[in-house]
């Protein structure tokens, strides 16, 4: 394949959204616009003919690779199996629980300065956190702690494997 065609392909490949001809022209100022369009058309035809997993399509005034619609069933199946992401709020809540367990929700809220209700619920659902019991004070509020799954996910043998804040502080101070 000639270089300019391959470069155009690489550009479209790395871009998140559709790529306009003008944008390609900026990267390859020596290639005429007509030539860019011709190469794009060639690429589109090649992918169509090849009948692979994705195609080069013209969308929203630009060019973009998209998976073939016939495969949506399998792609959805694949994407559903992805591990979920922990939000920053969830991570903070989890950190407070890990280091301060057994800990009350009111304490977590106080540490974080915001309500941790929804993070806490998410962590409970994902079984990273669990109810450890109730504190022996009026109202008997619920105490939270981490689970065995928490240790597994973070690759810890036990809680004493957690780095202490002093250890982290040492790294920060040397920095």
């Amino acid at each position: 394949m000639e270089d300019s065609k391959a470069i155009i392909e690489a550009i479209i490949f790395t871009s998140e959204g559709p790529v306009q001809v003008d944008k390609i022209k900026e990267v390859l100022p020596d290639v005429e616009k007509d030539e860019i369009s011709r190469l794009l058309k060639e690429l589109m035809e090649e992918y169509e003919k090849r009948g692979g997993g994705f195609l080069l399509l013209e969308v929203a005034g630009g060019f973009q690779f998209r998976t073939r619609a016939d495969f949506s069933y399998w792609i959805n199946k694949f994407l559903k199996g992805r591990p979920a992401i922990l939000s920053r709020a969830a991570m903070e809540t989890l950190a407070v629980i890990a280091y301060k367990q057994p800990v009350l929700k009111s304490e977590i809220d106080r540490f974080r300065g915001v309500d941790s209700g929804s993070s806490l619920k998410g962590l409970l659902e994902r079984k990273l956190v669990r109810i450890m019991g109730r504190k022996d004070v009026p109202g008997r509020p619920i105490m939270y702690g981490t689970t065995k799954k928490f240790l597994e996910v973070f690759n810890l043998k036990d809680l004493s494997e957690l780095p202490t804040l002093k250890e982290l502080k040492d790294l920060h101070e040397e920095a």
Partner: protein
Amino acid sequence: MGYEVKLEIFEGPLDLLLHLIKKNEINIYDIPITLITEQYLSHIEMMKSLNLDVAGEYLVLAATLIHIKSKMLLPSPEENLEGEEYEADPRSELVMQLLEYEVFKEAATQLGQRPLLERDVFKRGSSAEEKNVDEGKDEIDVDLNVFDLVEAFYRIISTLDKTELMEIDMEKMSLTEKINEIMDRLAEKKKMTFAELLGGQLNKRMILYTFLAILELMRLRMIRVYQAGSFGVIRVALVMEK
């Protein structure tokens, strides 16, 4: 790489020493210690005169070099008829360290020459990732890392600025862990004997923690402990929430 050397490219005292050895075309296994020590010290002086921060490690190595030099001035063991034990070349430890460092330096160079992601090669949607750095701060990698967790806690603690919060009671952590373990075992078996719970503990400390955990759980009314008669088996069971 041409060696028109600027001082700041040295990654440390070993790097500087290696540079001097290369520059003088010296056999690393037979370093003329007087010459190298002189050059090393004058280099440090130069760094100081340029107001560069001479890290403590440079001075430590300077001291090591001087020490080796003084040792080499003493009569060698072969000549010392009364010396019974054979003493190794005083330079050997430093040479070992230099050789090891040289290999890692090479390893670092080789790593840097690989086709690096986001420098030489790109994956699909690379431009999207750029954006995520600014906008998507809310999401953390799927690859959960203990470091992220400590960092998160550190962030919170730093804003609170309360030093007493920095202390983490490892004893308390171990106790918590025991409580978790007992709850897990009881959730599985519903009822266990006291001996079963204490059994299989490897050391006294763990037995103590287990005992303390049981007391704590009793206090929290999470478990019930009962005994059939004065010398009967002590049984432990979960208290079911209504």
